[in-house]
Structure formats: C-alpha cells, structure tokens
C-alpha cells in the first residue's frame, strides 16, 4: 500500500467502480479500496439469504426459502434502460462481455387502484384501456409527433419551439387530458415528480425517445436486468480497472484522508499511508464533506407468486404516478425472480420504493405493497440521500451522490461522467479502450 498513486478510489459501489475503470483505462495508476470484504457497497447484491436477514436483524430463515446460496438480493432496485447510458458504457468498455442480461417482461402503470400496461406505440395506444376513444386518438398523434421529432430539424417541431416552450404547452397542443399527461410524464418519460411540466419540452421528448428506443432493442420492455443481480455490475467494472492495472484491496479500513494545504495527498489505513494526487469516493467515506438532502424508503419483499394482473411476468416494473395517490413523488415497484438467478426456484423479489415525504415512510409505500398480494417476508429501510458540499476541484476529493429513487441508471451515469470530467478536466475518451480486449479468435 505504501506507494504513490494518481488516484485512490474509496468504496466499490457501481459509481466508484465505473470511475476506477475509466481512470485505469485512461492510464492513471489507481488504488481501489473498500472497507467491506465484498464488492459493491450499497449496490451489492446480498448473498446468501441469511446475510440479508442478518443485515435487517431478522431471524435466520433456515431452509424456508430454498437454498440460501441461490439468492442475490439487491438493496437498491434499478433496471438498465436498454438504450441508456449504462448500456453504452458497458458496450464501449467491453464490460458487457462479463455479464448477461434478461429483458424485463412488463412495464405497467397504476391508475385508480388498478394497473395497466404502459402503451408505447400507436397500436398499443389504441388497444389500451387507460384512455377513452377520443383521448386515444389524441395520444396517438402525440406519439407520432415524438417519434418523428428531430432536434436538429425544426420542420419536425411543427410550429412549436421545444427549447423555449414547456411540456405543459406541448400537452395542451395535443389536448391531452391530465390522466394521459400523468402516465406519459411518469411511466414513459420517467419523471419522478411534476416539475418537468414547467421545463422545456425537449427534455421530456428526449426521455420518451429513450424509452421507445430502449423498447425497440429487445422487445417486451425497455428495461434490462443482469443475471445474478445488480451486484455484478460493479464487479464487472472493477475487473476492467484491474485489467488496466488497477490494484484492489477489500476489507481495508480507511482511517484518514490526508490533506496538505487543503489538498489531498494520501489515504491512511492504520500506520500505512498511500500517497495520491486525487481521491474519488462515495459519501460514506467523507461524512464531513457531504450534506443530507433527502431520504429514500425501500422495502424488499419476498413473494411466492408473481404480481396479479401482470400476466404472471417473472419480472416487471409498476409505476404509481404521484397524483394517483396524492403524493409529490412517484412510487416504484420492481419485480424480479428466480429466472435472473437472484432467488431460489419459485420465489420472487419485489421492491417498493419512493422518495420520503412524511415522517411515516413505511406508510407512504402502502399503495405499492397493496399490489403485491401476500408477502412472505418484508425488509424495510430508510436511506439518507447525500450529496457533496463542493465540486472537489480545490481538495481534489471527488465525491459521488447517493443512489436516488429513480428506477434506472441514467442519473447514476450522469453523475459518473460529471465527476470524471471534473477530476480529469476532460470528457472520457472511449477510443482509449483497446478495440480487442483479447476476445479475438485465435
């Protein structure tokens, strides 16, 4: 450890592992440390099952849920948008070759106590029971507009300026009613609250396009989920970093981040000090340099059945738009199962989550829990959301934000790319990755 590094990365959560990989690929000498004995931090998938029970201080389940080694339970629920940033990062870095995914089978939205499939193309829009007949036509016209929309071609804007006019105005242009606006903004554009209505329409159009482009890739839904759980993702990027020379140390407590004149010069563990020019870390390693800016409540549920009205889907996402249940932010339900090697045969894992708005967070997710039917076991956690108090340029300590309540990894990747740019002064150059990482035919 007593060496000098360009960068020391603390914590092996997904964000830190992607950063570590990008830094190593860019030719930096990287030391990557985690205080835990396992990879993944908050983005680990817990295995075997008794570890999850121990973590939540519940009694060891024995063999009640099958072989406990078959379980890999995420603590933070997210899916990958098939055409989103994380998939692009996986492809460009070659990390995709360590992983296998399955397409999530269904995408549903909640309306008046029931769930309905999210309509994404004209055909589905016409068949959907979310809307009345005339509304269907209007929604179909809106979808065609979004589909044909090209940012670089004003002709496709149809007398509407998407960068100055807001989304509310675009809904009004097509005469969409509040219900349709609700599922469009929340289940297609995946906004967490209604702030987007007052923002330029182009931001929402991009998100709807991301949804439909993602859907176009593998069918069924726009979402992908990795075999063996999300915890495989940080491991994959850690391997990338290692292949490019990164050094890995797990189970290594960090006692001090050493500063000189306000600038980081090293990291101390016990009596050892590793010198460095920069530190990249998650908020848990720098409690004095982050502020709490919110909370997320998450409930992991073990089920012995699929969720009703999802055509027995082995994986699904259900979005409960805030207005439907009188809230300011949406409630998300994600379901995965044994088909992803995250549970023993026959078992399902549902996760219900939302941004905390009251002092009774567990009660806030009730509308989501009510959709699940009988729940064999529940694990509720309320996590603080932290963000750094400064941009790190002075201290050269670059801190990631906690994982938010969004259902996918877009904000995760934006944070990573932004940190990389702050830390290195440049955008990540994907051409630095060797085209053939050794997988060529011999």
């Amino acid at each position, binding site marked *: 450890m007593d060496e000098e590094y360009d960068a020391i990365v603390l914590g092996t959560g997904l964000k830190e592992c992607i950063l570590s990989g990008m830094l190593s690929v860019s030719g930096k000498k990287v030391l990557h440390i985690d205080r835990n004995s396992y990879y993944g931090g908050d983005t680990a998938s817990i295995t075997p099952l008794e570890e999850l029970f121990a973590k939540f201080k519940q009694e060891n389940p024995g063999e009640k849920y099958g072989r406990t080694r078959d379980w890999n339970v995420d603590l933070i629920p997210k899916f990958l948008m098939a055409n989103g940033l994380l998939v692009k990062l996986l492809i460009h870095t070659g990390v995709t070759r360590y992983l296998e995914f399955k397409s999530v089978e269904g995408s549903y939205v909640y309306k008046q106590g029931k769930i309905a499939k999210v309509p994404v193309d004209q055909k589905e829009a016409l068949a959907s029971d979310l809307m009345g007949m005339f509304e269907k036509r209007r929604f179909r016209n809106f979808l065609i507009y979004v589909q044909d929309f090209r940012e670089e071609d004003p002709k496709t804007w149809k007398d509407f300026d998407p960068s100055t006019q807001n989304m509310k105005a675009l809904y009004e242009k097509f005469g969409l009613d509040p219900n349709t606006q609700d599922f469009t903004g929340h289940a297609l554009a995946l906004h967490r609250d209604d702030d987007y209505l007052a923002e330029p329409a182009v931001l929402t159009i991009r998100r709807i396009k991301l949804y439909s482009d993602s859907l176009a890739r593998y069918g069924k839904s726009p979402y992908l989920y990795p075999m063996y759980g999300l915890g495989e993702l940080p491991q994959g990027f850690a391997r990338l970093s290692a*292949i490019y020379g990164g050094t*890995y140390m797990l*189970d290594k407590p960090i006692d001090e981040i050493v500063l000189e004149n306000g600038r980081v010069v090293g990291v101390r563990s016990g009596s050892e000090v590793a010198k460095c020019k920069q530190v990249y870390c998650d908020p848990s390693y720098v409690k004095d340099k982050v502020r709490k800016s919110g909370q997320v409540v998450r409930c992991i549920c073990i089920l012995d059945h699929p969720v009703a009205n999802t055509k027995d889907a082995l994986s699904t996402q259900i979005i409960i738009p805030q207005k439907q249940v009188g809230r300011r932010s949406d409630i998300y339900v994600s379901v995965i199962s044994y088909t992803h090697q995250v549970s023993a045969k026959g078992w399902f894992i549902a996760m219900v989550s939302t941004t905390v708005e009251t002092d009774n967070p567990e009660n806030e997710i009730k509308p989501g829990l009510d959709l699940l039917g009988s729940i064999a076991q529940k694990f509720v956690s309320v996590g603080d959301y932290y963000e750094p108090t400064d941009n790190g340029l002075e201290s050269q300590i670059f801190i990631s934000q906690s994982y938010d309540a969004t259902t996918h990894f877009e904000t995760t990747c934006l944070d990573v790319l932004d940190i990389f740019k702050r830390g290195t002064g440049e955008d990540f150059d994907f051409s630095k990755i060797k085209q053939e990482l050794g997988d060529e*035919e011999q």
Partner: protein
Amino acid sequence: MANNQRGGGIQRPNGATQNKICQFKLVLLGESAVGKSSLVLRFVKGQFHEYQESTIGAAFLTQTVHIEETAVKFEIWDTAGQERYHSLAPMYYRGAQAAIVVYDIQNQDSFVRAQTWVKELQRQASPNIVIALAGNKADLAASRAVDYEEAKQYADENGLLFMETSAKTAVNVNEIFLAIAKKLPKNEGTGPQQNIRPSGNETNRTSGNCCSK
C-alpha cells in the same frame, strides 16, 4: 442449472466447420507469480517471457482444441491481479466450467494456497466444475520444494486432474488443457441462450453512439 452453462448455445460468429463446437469458461487461480498468465500465454500464443508483466491486460483469451469431432473452445479468464490482496470478485467464478489451480513447485506456501483455492472453488463454483492442479515451473525442479507424490496424492483424493507444467519449456501445457477438454461434458443440451449480452450491433433505431454527450 442449465442457465449458467454456456457450452454449445452461444451465438458468436466463428467460421469453423467442425461438426460441433463447445465453448467453456475456464478460470485460472493461484498465488501471485506462480505463472498463471505465463501458462495461458504459452497455451494461447506459444510464447514465453522471462519477465512477464503481472497481468495480461486482456478481458480473456480464447483458444480452441480439438477432441475427435468436437472443437472445444476455451474462454480463459485471468485474475487480472485481483487475487493479490484477496480481492477476487465472485463474478470471476460465475458459470466457470473448468479451473486450473496453479502453484510453483519451488514454493510450499503457494501449494498450501492452491489447496485453499480448491476449497473456495468447491464452495463457490458450480458443482460440476472440472478442476486441474498445475505444479508450474517444472523446469526448475532442481530447487523443488513441493514433492510430486504429495501433490499427486492430494489431487487424487480431491478428484482433480494433476500435472507438473512448465510455461517456459512448454512441458505439459497443451496437455493439461487437452486433459480438461476431454473431461468436460460435450453434450450439454442447452438450446440457444435467451440471455442478452448487449453488443451495440442489435438493430437500433437511434444513431447516438457516444456516451460522453
């Protein structure tokens, strides 16, 4: 579980004309500097470097051997140095159908450590994994510290293939991979995989191909 067997079903371009191609993931394990990378480099490229850098710098290497009618394609994973501070990710073992656990015949500690790796594999990897034990640096037998018979007995007791190898002189390098290939089941009845590995080649209606903006 059939799901983590990749043999046969993988859809990758290959111009081969053999009757049958089976693909297997093989992982290397063993202490630092016992010659894991050198063994792979000898097997895959026929090369040996006296001062091999500590990692290969490749995601994995592939090499195909032929057993009668069948082409057995190995996808060989190197530890990338992550074993050094006991920080090898569990992902490394996932779906591995074969493993070579390497020690240095001049180093008793590396043999003890090899036995720990075997236990780890028996605990973490799939139950049907084919494990081979390689006593490497056999060309340096003059300074031997691990007795051949002792290692052989240990391998027999644990159902492991065993050879003493030399990446330097190539002794038993192809042989150990061939022995593994022979022992691997070639009749995995797995159909085409339904799992997805994004590659950027799928039909994709967008033109965006850059992540950074």
